[in-house]
C-alpha cells in the first residue's frame, strides 16, 4: 500500500527548508483547510447527485438529465441557484441563535470529516481516542438542530427540533455501543490502528456473529442519527411543513442540506473504517494471486467504494420503508436496539476473552 505520509513529509521538508517553522506550519494549516473545503464541497456535490439519481432509479425515473451530460451539471446549477436566493430575515426570531445554528452544524461535520483516514497517512486529525472524538463531535451537531428549531419562532420547527433531539440522542447510544464492541475486538480507539488490524481480515468477519449484529445495529442507528430514511420524522413534511429548517431560506437552508449529506458520508465512512476494513483491500487467506490483484487497487478507492456502498444501502432504506411514528421509533431504540447492543457487547467481550475470534 502506498503511504501518503511520504508525500506530506516531502512537502513539509520543502517548506521547512526555505522558511521558519512557524511560517511553514501556518502554510500547512492553510493547505489543510483548503483541502478540507475541497473534499467537503466535492463530496456534498457528489452526494446530492448520487441521492437524486438513486431515488430516481428506485422510482423508475431517469433523474436529472437536462443540465450537462447525464445531468452531471445539475448540482452546480442547484448550488448556484441556492446562492442567489434572498436571505429573508424574519421578525420574531432570535437573531443570534438563528444565525449560530448553521455554524454549529457545519463545523461539527467538517471536524468529523477531518478525522476520517482515506488512506495510509492520508488523515488530518489523528487522536489516539479517534473514534471517541468523532462520537463526541457528532453530539455537538444536535445542538445546532435544537437551536435552529427553537430560534425560528415557529411551532413546527420547535416540535421538529425536539423530535430530532430525542431521536439523535437515543440512537447515539446504540451507535456508541455497536462501535464499542468493535473497540473491544481491536483493543484500541485509534482509527489508524483499527484499520491496520484489519489487514488480514475485516472486523465484520473477524468478530463472527457479534460483529455482524453490531454492524446491523450500527447501520440502523446511523440511519436514525442522520435523520434519514424511515426515521426522517424531524422533517416529516405532511405534519411539520419541513421540520427544523422551515424558516431558513437561501444558502442558510443550503447549510442544513449540505450537513445532512456530509453526515451521511461520515456515518458510512465510519462503518467502512470500523467494520469493512477502511482502506484495506479485501483479502482471502491462501489465495495469494487474488490478494495481489486486490492490492493493486489504491487505498482511498477502497475506502470511498465501501463508504458509497453503505450510503447506497441507507438511501435504499429511505425509498423502501414507510416513515415510522415517533413512539415506534423511540420504542425500537429503547426496547430493542439498546438492550440488544448491550448484550451484544457482552457477547463480543466473552468471545474476545476466550479467543473465539477469527
Amino acid at each position: 500500500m502506498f503511504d501518503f505520509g511520504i508525500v506530506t513529509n516531502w512537502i513539509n521538508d520543502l517548506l521547512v527548508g526555505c522558511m521558519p517553522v512557524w511560517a511553514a506550519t501556518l502554510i500547512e494549516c492553510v493547505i489543510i483547510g483548503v483541502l478540507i473545503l475541497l473534499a467537503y464541497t466535492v463530496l456534498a456535490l457528489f452526494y446530492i447527485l448520487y441521492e437524486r439519481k438513486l431515488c430516481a432509479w428506485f422510482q423508475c425515473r431517469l433523474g436529472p438529465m437536462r443540465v450537462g451530460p447525464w445531468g452531471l451539471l445539475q448540482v452546480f446549477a442547484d448550488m448556484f441557484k441556492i446562492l442567489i436566493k434572498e436571505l429573508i430575515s424574519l421578525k420574531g426570531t432570535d437573531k443570534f441563535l438563528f444565525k449560530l445554528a448553521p455554524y454549529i452544524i457545519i463545523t461539527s461535520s467538517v471536524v468529523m470529516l477531518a478525522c476520517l483516514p482515506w488512506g495510509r497517512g492520508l488523515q488530518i486529525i489523528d487522536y489516539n481516542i479517534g473514534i471517541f472524538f468523532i462520537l463526541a463531535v457528532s453530539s455537538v451537531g444536535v445542538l445546532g438542530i435544537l437551536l435552529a428549531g427553537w430560534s425560528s419562532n415557529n411551532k413546527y420547527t420547535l416540535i421538529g427540533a425536539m423530535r430530532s433531539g430525542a431521536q439523535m440522542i437515543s440512537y447515539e447510544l446504540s451507535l456508541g455501543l455497536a462501535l464499542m464492541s468493535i473497540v473491544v475486538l481491536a483493543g484500541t480507539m485509534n482509527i489508524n490502528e483499527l484499520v491496520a488490524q484489519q489487514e488480514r481480515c475485516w472486523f465484520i468477519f473477524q468478530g463472527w456473529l457479534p460483529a455482524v449484529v453490531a454492524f446491523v445495529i450500527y447501520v440502523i442507528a446511523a440511519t436514525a442519527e442522520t435523520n434519514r430514511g424511515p426515521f426522517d420524522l424531524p422533517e416529516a413534511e405532511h405534519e411539520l411543513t419541513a421540520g427544523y429548517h422551515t424558516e431558513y431560506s437561501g444558502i442558510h437552508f443550503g447549510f442544513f442540506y449540505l450537513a445532512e449529506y456530509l453526515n451521511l458520508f461520515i456515518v458510512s465512512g465510519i462503518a467502512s473504517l470500523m467494520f469493512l476494513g477502511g482502506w484495506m483491500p479485501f483479502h482471502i487467506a491462501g489465495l495469494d494471486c487474488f490478494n495481489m490483484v486486490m492490492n493493486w487497487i489504491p487505498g482511498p478507492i477502497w475506502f470511498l467504494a465501501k463508504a458509497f456502498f453503505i450510503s447506497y444501502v441507507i438511501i435504499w432504506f429511505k425509498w423502501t420503508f414507510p416513515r415510522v411514528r415517533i413512539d415506534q421509533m423511540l420504542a425500537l431504540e429503547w426496547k430493542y436496539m439498546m438492550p440488544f447492543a448491550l448484550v451484544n457487547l457482552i457477547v463480543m467481550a466473552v468471545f474476545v476473552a476466550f479467543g473465539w475470534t477469527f
Partner: protein
Amino acid sequence: MNLLLEISNGDLAVTATLTGIGLVFAALLIAKLISPKSYSVKKGETYECGIPTRGESMIQFKSGYYIFAILFLLFDVETVFLYPWATIMRSLGPSGLLCVAIFMFILILGLAYAWRKGALKWQ
C-alpha cells in the same frame, strides 16, 4: 501517522473548526453580495405552514422527550465509562469482564425498572 508530522492534533482540530466557520462565513458573504434584497411586512412574518401564525412560539411546552433525555444521560455516561474498559479489555482478562458484566447487569436492571414504570411509553 499524521498528515503533517510537525503539527499537533489540537492545532489540526482548531484548523478544521476554523475551516468550518470560514466555509459558512464565506458562503454567507457571497450570498449576501449576489442575492437580491427586498423588504415587505408580509415577507418578514413567520412562514410556519402558510396561514397567519397565532400566539407565541418560544414557550415552555410539555414535551414527552425529557424522560428520554434523562435516561440518555444515564446511559451516555455509562458509555463513557465503558470505552476505556473496551480498550484494555484484553489485558484485564476474565476478572475485568466479570466486573463489567456486574456493572452492566445493574444498568440493565435500571432500564428494566424504567420500562416497568412506563417511562418508555409514549404519552
